[in-house]
């Protein structure tokens, strides 16, 4: 299977990389002793490494192309993703769901508090991902300032509690409402924009919110943030840190379930379809009498709502908020969760959030390479699975002939 051409290509790649990395990998100037070290060993490592990597890379690309060819010829039944197969089989789907449910419920008792804490923050990102999924995945509006709504939720709890002593459970719906309101506020000016322009304006919006929080000292206490935010209480009982963490974990499980339920219902509702339709063809939508303004605004509002809620939980969980938690980087991570997981796919977004948030936590030893790994992961994903980890498959049915159809 290995042809001469492939080897030649790999050799060329490795030579190129050796040349490219020569200045940083081989030469080392020692300014104290005025000598130049030549680390030829590194060059060899780079050469061999890139040779192997390029070989593996091309092997997988070829395999992918072959698969696509075969699928076209009909030799290979179109590869149905594993998650889809599990979903389509009732006998597999139910036990899998029950197992996942039991695992989620038992998690705090099996694993340490540290793990529970990490899982709770991962669940916050699941919720954020699902919210952004409405805007990006369903309605196709690229929103790079999503973190702004997250900040709105977090500061809503922090400030309302500081000034008025409102409890977590009172602020949770307020945070959601505020998130939605800000979603509409952002939505209005960007209604006419699409694609790149929309991305830039939303990016600006996210930064505006952060900069306001950073500089308006009288309102938000500036960069020093707000500390001593109370954790949620259970029927008026204050919990110990240990119990509160577990409690927050369960709150997040509940909220995630709520989000999944609502987003799932939305997807199959008329407004959900209108979002998809709007993403596909705006003019046709208008010709059908779909109100562009209203539909887009509901997408922004309903997406931002979840961010507002998860912001409240975030503030309660960390007991401290400051603007540094709401940088553009957060927006990018949430967007990556949606893209990596699979746009428009609920399961995909959950998987994406767990992978992207949990992996850096468990690979702390390699934290220096986090960005590198992140980049590589994204590139590899886009080449081999452009649809995401668990791509969104809308329910489709195969044409089964006339006789069959008339019965139904």
């Amino acid at each position, binding site marked *: 299977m290995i042809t001469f051409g492939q080897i030649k290509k790999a050799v060329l790649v490795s030579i190129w990389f050796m040349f490219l990395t020569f200045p940083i990998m081989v030469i080392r100037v020692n300014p104290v002793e005025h000598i130049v070290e030549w680390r030829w060993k590194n060059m060899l490592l780079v050469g061999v490494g890139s040779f192997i990597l390029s070989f593996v890379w091309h092997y997988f690309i070829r395999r992918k192309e072959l698969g696509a060819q075969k699928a076209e010829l009909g030799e290979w039944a179109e590869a149905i993703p594993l998650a889809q197969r599990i979903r389509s089989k009732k006998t597999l789907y139910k036990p899998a769901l029950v197992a996942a449910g039991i695992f989620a419920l038992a998690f705090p008792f099996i694993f340490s508090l540290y793990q529970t804490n990490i899982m709770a923050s991962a669940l916050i990102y699941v919720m954020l991902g699902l919210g952004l999924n409405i805007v990006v995945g369903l309605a196709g509006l690229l929103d790079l300032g999503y973190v702004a709504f997250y900040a709105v939720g977090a500061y809503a709890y922090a400030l309302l509690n500081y000034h008025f002593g409102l409890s977590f459970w009172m602020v949770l719906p307020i945070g959601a409402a505020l998130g939605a309101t800000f979603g509409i506020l952002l939505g209005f000016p960007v209604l006419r924009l699409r694609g790149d322009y929309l991305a830039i304006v939303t990016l600006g919006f996210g930064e505006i919110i952060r900069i306001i929080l950073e500089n308006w000292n009288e309102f938000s206490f500036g960069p020093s943030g707000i500390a001593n935010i109370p954790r949620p209480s259970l029927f008026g009982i204050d919990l110990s840190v240990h119990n509160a963490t577990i409690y927050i974990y369960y709150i997040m499980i509940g909220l995630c379930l709520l989000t999944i339920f609502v987003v799932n219902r939305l997807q199959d509702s*008329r407004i959900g*379809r*209108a979002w*998809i*339709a709007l993403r*596909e*063809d705006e*003019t*046709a*939508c*208008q*010709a*059908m*009498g*779909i*109100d*562009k303004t209203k539909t887009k605004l509901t997408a922004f509002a309903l997406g931002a709502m979840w961010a507002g809620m998860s912001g409240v939980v975030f503030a309660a969980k960390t007991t401290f908020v400051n603007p540094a938690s709401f940088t553009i980087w957060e927006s990018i991570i949430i967007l990556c969760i949606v893209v990596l997981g699979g746009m428009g796919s609920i399961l995909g977004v959950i998987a994406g959030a767990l992978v992207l948030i949990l992996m850096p936590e468990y690979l702390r030893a390699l934290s220096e390479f986090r960005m590198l790994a992140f980049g590589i992961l994204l590139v590899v994903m886009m080449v081999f699975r452009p649809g995401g980890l668990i791509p969104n498959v*809308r*329910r*489709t*049915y195969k*044409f089964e*002939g*006339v006789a069959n*159809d008339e019965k139904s």
Partner: protein
Amino acid sequence: MLKLQNVQTFYGNIQALKDVTIQISEGEIVSLIGSNGAGKSTTLMAICGIVPPRSGEILFMGQPITHMEPDRIVSLGICQVPEGRRIFPHLSVLENLDMGAFLRKDRSQIKRDMEYLFELFPLLAQRRHQAGGTLSGGEQQMLAISRALMARPKLLLLDEPSLGLAPLIVKRTFEIVRKINTENKTTIFLVEQNANLALKVAARGYVMENGRITLTDSSENLLANEGVKKAYLGF
């Protein structure tokens, strides 16, 4: 039923429609013919409110709709089958139809209308769960027409229904258009490049050139008109 009075439309600084005046009465099939870029589609976009006119007036059943939002216009009973069909490729046939009924809330009536359309287009019934993008061009055209009919329009605007379709399917499409007109009493405003076919279906026609209506007459007279023959019928 529909009246365009001296409508002028601009894209930026470029004038697309110049003093267009068109009148359509209830129950008619009227066609608008003209070559590429004459402003035919723009006329429809102006009626639908997607590209609102800069001056002039559009009246629908006596009511001015000139600067109404597109969705209000649809709710009044004007629905467009856009050029190039523009169905939603990732939505199933059923979902596409449901999008057509977006402004309606009477579920049982919607269901009945769907059944009626499936009777009209049995092929769509077979493919009701298939994604719209996987249909053939002809089927997509049927779907686009059905989708527009789901809005229960009083006036149906058809933009180049023959575009990119095989002659046999074009013929069928026009048969359906006539059927819709006679069965549902739906008024139809047909925009076509294929002047020959359009004029055979329609009772009256308008000829458009460079954004201006240059000629209007009954279809018979237009078909016999030397200028039209030369320019659009290829004789």
